[in-house]
């Protein structure tokens, strides 16, 4: 029942969006080539699916995303667990992290392109940077906030490193880490598009640039919605994984 109602909410919400778009299309003076109607964008979507171009772009982008985001999360979590356990070392690393963190990943883009050229790597690097700092800093703070009693119990029962890390520190910090991984997924997806717009000749981000160059606003808008849809699905999937792990570890629903 609850599921049915939320499906209803989604449909109504999308219908409102399409209606607003259609109204804007009807009342605006722009030419159809610059501001297409929802139906024209839909036709462009079908065209892209039929030609296989969309699938190709999605696969290219997803590979970059999985590599960049996956590496970033793994490295940031491991580094965060280590730095969180070594507050003496973290004191000297933290100022640099705080300096690098507010820099938009796109600011690195020209530099990355200069170093690595156009291709897969710039997009991967941008995604990596986008996810890295939030996950690293959240992991460190989740580790720092672990209740001292867990360490006392572990010490009392003779649990030493490295067992301490995966028996106590990781599960105790997990809710904080999972939250950061989840949030970082969204921003990494956002920066994938930025990375591909500047540093690649393929993928969903490049497809937007390509559509602009060919003055195909219908393809452009269709691609934008595909990007939004994939972001939504990714978010939903990682939410499922997060919930499942939390449940296995006794987290409250």
């Amino acid at each position, binding site marked *: 029942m609850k599921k049915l109602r939320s499906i209803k909410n989604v449909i109504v919400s999308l219908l409102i969006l399409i209606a607003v778009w259609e109204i804007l299309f009807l009342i605006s003076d722009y030419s159809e080539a610059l501001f297409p109607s929802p139906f024209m964008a839909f036709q462009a979507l079908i065209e892209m699916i039929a030609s296989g171009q969309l699938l190709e772009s999605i696969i290219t982008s997803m590979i970059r995303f999985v590599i960049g985001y996956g590496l970033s999360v793994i490295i940031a979590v491991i580094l965060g667990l280590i730095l969180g356990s070594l507050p003496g070392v973290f004191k000297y690393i933290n100022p640099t992290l705080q300096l690098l963190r507010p820099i938009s990943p796109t600011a690195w883009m020209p530099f990355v392109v200069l170093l690595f050229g156009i291709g897969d790597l710039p997009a991967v690097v941008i995604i990596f940077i986008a996810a890295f700092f939030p996950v690293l800093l959240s992991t460190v703070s989740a580790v720092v906030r672990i209740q001292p*009693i867990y360490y*006392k119990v572990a010490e*009392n*029962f*003779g649990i030493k490193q490295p067992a301490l890390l995966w*028996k*106590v520190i990781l599960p105790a910090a997990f809710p904080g880490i999972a939250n950061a991984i989840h949030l970082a997924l969204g921003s990494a997806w956002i920066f994938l598009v930025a990375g591909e717009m500047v540093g690649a000749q393929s993928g969903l981000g490049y497809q937007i640039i390509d559509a602009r160059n060919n003055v195909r606003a219908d393809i452009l808008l269709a691609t934008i919605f595909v990007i939004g849809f994939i972001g939504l699905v990714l978010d939903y999937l990682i939410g499922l994984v997060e919930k499942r792990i939390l449940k296995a570890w*006794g987290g409250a629903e």
Partner: protein
Amino acid sequence: MSYIHIENAGKTFLQNGEEFTALADVNLDIEKGEFICLLGPSGCGKSTLLNGIAGFDLVNKGSITIDGEEVKGPSTNNVTIFQNYGLLPWRTVLKNVELGLESQNMDKKKRKEIARKYLQVVKLENFENSFPHQLSGGMQQRVAIARALAVNPEILFMDEPFGALDAITRMKLQDDILDICKNEKKTIIFVTHDIEEAVYLADRIVVMTPNPGKVKGVLTVPLHHFRDRTSGDFLLVRDKIFELLNMKTEETIEYQI
């Protein structure tokens, strides 16, 4: 020398540049199998003393030895039970009880067997797949007790273990712990600020007073297990503790009038 030997033990902290004495000149000998209660109001250093013996926070004056060896840190032979249970919330009840056994080289089957046995001792055998947050406070503390017993420790340190429980649950757990120590023969050092609890449980009560924390007196409880909380003997011991804590001054005031 006795099993636990405490000689001139003390603990001082630096607080705002000044030395603060949390515990001063404690001399105490504890024999194997004794049930000792450290009793006193907050700030009397009873938890400081317990942490010193358990090795979590070492004393910096005098010495504490267990079985002839100086305490230098927590030992796996002696397990501490905390007021807030210290269960790992991401583990099931059974996995929590297995925790201490995991550091010993033991196959999985044996580990489960031992854990189940001690869950039975604390009457929680039907909850092995529950998570701690699904249990009441009293049940959680019983899991902690099972976890401690599972590694077959020599000494059980209990730091106000029933302090967070309601009065009725607390009395039940007091009976349970007496039962358990009758069967398992452990040395138990039990911190509490509840006078009745101390009289009900202890073989000897170490009465402590604050500013600075020190031992005011040691009372041997001449009662046997399964004590009656309302008997005359019980009240007599309680009375002596009141006397040691200087809580009987009202009578003298009455005489002055």
